């Protein structure tokens, strides 16, 4: 819950509410509406908490955060969390590596 997971923005919807974010190769929808003032654009990096992007960070900071999660031994937990976001699309449940409500 308190994990801050870095991801890179790939697409943003027209309302600026949801974005497709790449987290170490895994693509997920996250809510980005809290970062409207920061002017989020494609290629930006964000820190994600429980499915919501909470802050915009630099690429270097994103790299640091990934290394920190690895050093803390929480990288796999972070990946499970990101894979678990089920609100993105209908077919999420059938995807490989999904560890969300149905299977755990």
């Amino acid at each position, binding site marked *: 819950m308190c994990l801050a997971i870095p991801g890179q923005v790939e697409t943003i919807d027209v309302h600026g509410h949801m974005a497709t974010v790449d987290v170490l190769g895994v693509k997920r929808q996250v809510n980005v509406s809290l970062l409207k003032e920061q002017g989020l654009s494609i290629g930006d990096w964000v820190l994600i908490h429980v499915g*919501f992007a*909470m802050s915009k960070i630099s690429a270097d900071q994103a790299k640091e955060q990934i290394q920190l999660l690895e050093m803390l031994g929480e990288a796999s937990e972070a990946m499970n969390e990101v894979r678990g976001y089920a609100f993105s699309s209908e077919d999420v449940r059938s995807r490989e590596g999904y560890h969300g409500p149905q299977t755990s």
Partner: protein
Amino acid sequence: MRYVDEFRNPQLIEKASRELHAIVEPDRVYRFMEVCGGHTFSIFRFGIQHLLPPNIELIHGPGCPVCVLPMGRMDDGLHLADEPDVIFTAFGDVMRIPGSRGTPLELKAKGRDIRMVYSPLDALRLAQKEPERKVVFFAIGFETTAPSTALTLIKARELEVKNFFVLSNHVLILPAMRAILESPDMRIDGFLGPGHVSTVIGVRPYEFVAKHYGRPVVVAGFEPLDLLQSLIMLVKQVNAGSARVENQYSRVVPWEGNERALAAMAEVFEVRPFFEWRGLGFISQSALKIKHEFAPWDAEVHFTLAGLRVTDPKAAQCGEVLKGVLKPHQCKLFGRECTPERPVGALMVSSEGACAAYYQYTWQGAAGE
């Protein structure tokens, strides 16, 4: 110096550690509290204490939301799962919190419909998919997660989802800090301010700690170097007799916080008159209740909650550990009756709790040497 080789920037760490040793005044003791459970975990995982002069003492604060949730509140929530039409949802770390009748995981094994979600939005979506069932989201967390719950409730209203309910256990960090500062046995010289909570609330709200209580606050990042730099900033302030709020983690934390997140919280939540914290007791104005405008989605309005109070075993000394009066291993139950596998007290429940982190990285390590 354990772990020092695995740091990304070992030279900088050693330099910071040397600087700390050089600036501390040998005849005084510096007691600093890290408020955030993420910091506690980082401090133990990296063995930060080994990089510090012996007269800097780190006190592990109340910032682990899983740890401070009272058992009665967990029981109230799990009671809802007894109703056959209810799906109880919560984050993964809630699944291991013991209630009187067991953890959510154990009750799930006994046939209750209890599901782990990674985001409150997942719980809302589940409600849309299962319109015949009532989906309850057991919300916990500080200001880091409260905006997410708020935005999910706003979304539920917008989509007119009628079978989604939130049981709010959201708590606020500042009243907990104030309660600790008001405690008569308080012995803290300064605070490492929480990193992620501050991305939401900003840095300004800590000013009362400096102004009214004369204690410095440095909002800190989570890397070993962040922690050491923040401690250097605290020591310099204490040596100079000053008490100011500083932001070491400015690369992520804006001074003003996140206005949209604060606005969403203000739209959905109001402050409760008081709320119970495990280990600290009742703290006034320390938690968030769902506002009347969102009553149709408030589990406390829709369901009848027993309002259970389960007191922690008297022998558990969580409160003393939280206030820094005792070290984790000085509690009578530590490592005997109370272990991470079978936690008795709050601080043993999550890896971000002081006792669990101490048990895993310091005590077991020492026992093995």
